[in-house]
């Protein structure tokens, strides 16, 4: 597991963080739940309905660019924050974003979306189940089993590496480019890149899965 809390400078940030606004939303949700006005599951269901509508979801474009532009891919893997900000056409990406590349030998999977470490501006909204503690602990102990639950079967000799975000280190999985996409434009390739493929709990869509 990739735990390197020591490697960054803000040691005092090792506890969880929520913004002032997030605290106010949580306070409301808790009170309304306790008083029986809202059901957290129903709220989650509404939020899930909009999961593709939250945040700029720049990740797919970034992945598609990495698939077509070897120099960008190299820069992305070296320093994702720097590479993405250098593109200039996205809102500023937070610090310490690390891109990890899937290969036939290694599949990467990211856990921890519990607070500000989830790069939603890249990935959009985390799936609701992803926040659940059981998922998190199982992903660490039995990543292959978790992947199988999501319908992802990898070759037996593919190593699975689980990355656990630290307070200031966030991860973006660079999935493998699907076969049969030679000569595709970045825009078309981006349509294949799902959120789940960028957190490693899924694979990109196959060309045949694209809606016409």
């Amino acid at each position, binding site marked *: 597991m990739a735990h390197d809390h020591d490697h960054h400078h803000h040691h005092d940030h*090792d506890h969880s963080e*929520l913004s002032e606004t997030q*605290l106010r939303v949580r*306070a*409301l949700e808790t*009170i309304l739940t306790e008083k029986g*006005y*809202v059901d957290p599951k129903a709220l989650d269901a509404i939020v899930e309905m909009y999961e593709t509508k939250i945040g700029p979801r720049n990740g797919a474009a970034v992945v598609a660019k990495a698939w077509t532009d070897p120099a960008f891919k190299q820069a992305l893997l070296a320093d994702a924050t720097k590479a993405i900000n250098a593109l200039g056409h996205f809102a500023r990406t937070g610090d310490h974003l690390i891109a990890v590349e899937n290969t036939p030998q290694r599949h990467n999977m990211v856990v921890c979306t519990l607070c500000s470490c989830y790069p939603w501006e890249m990935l959009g*909204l985390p799936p609701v189940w992803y926040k659940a*503690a059981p998922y998190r602990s199982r992903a660490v102990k039995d990543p292959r089993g978790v992947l199988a639950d999501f319908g992802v079967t990898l070759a037996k000799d593919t190593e699975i590496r689980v990355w656990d975000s630290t307070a200031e280190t966030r991860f973006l999985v660079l999935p493998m480019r699907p076969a049969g996409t030679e000569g595709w434009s970045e825009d078309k390739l981006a349509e294949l890149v799902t959120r789940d493929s960028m957190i490693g709990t899924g694979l990109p869509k196959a060309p045949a899965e694209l809606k016409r």
Partner: protein
Amino acid sequence: MDSVAAAKAARAVPGVPQDDDGPVFKEPWQAQAFAIALALHERGVFTWNEWAATLSDEIKRSQAAGDPDTGETYYLHWLATLERLVAEKGVASREMLTEYRDAWDHACDRTPHGKPIELTPADFRH
């Protein structure tokens, strides 16, 4: 709750940021605040007319206080409207909102990174 109710809300309330398919959100908390308003409306806590009037009042108040009204702050006004309406309707007082906000803040501070942040009774004693 379904997309029909959500679409209705987005139409009934002026200014909700949307694309062709309906509401869009810049950050996850905005969708949560939207969902809470939807759920309270469904429970009959307020009508959309009432909501829109209060929201518009909140926006005017912020503008008078120097809010640039760029659309960036829309959901901050939305959240202020939620807080105001639950207080006015006797659902949760301002004091209670503050108390819970502080308790979450405490829970957050004592939770190591990566562990689920959970609110416990002890968080209210600080």
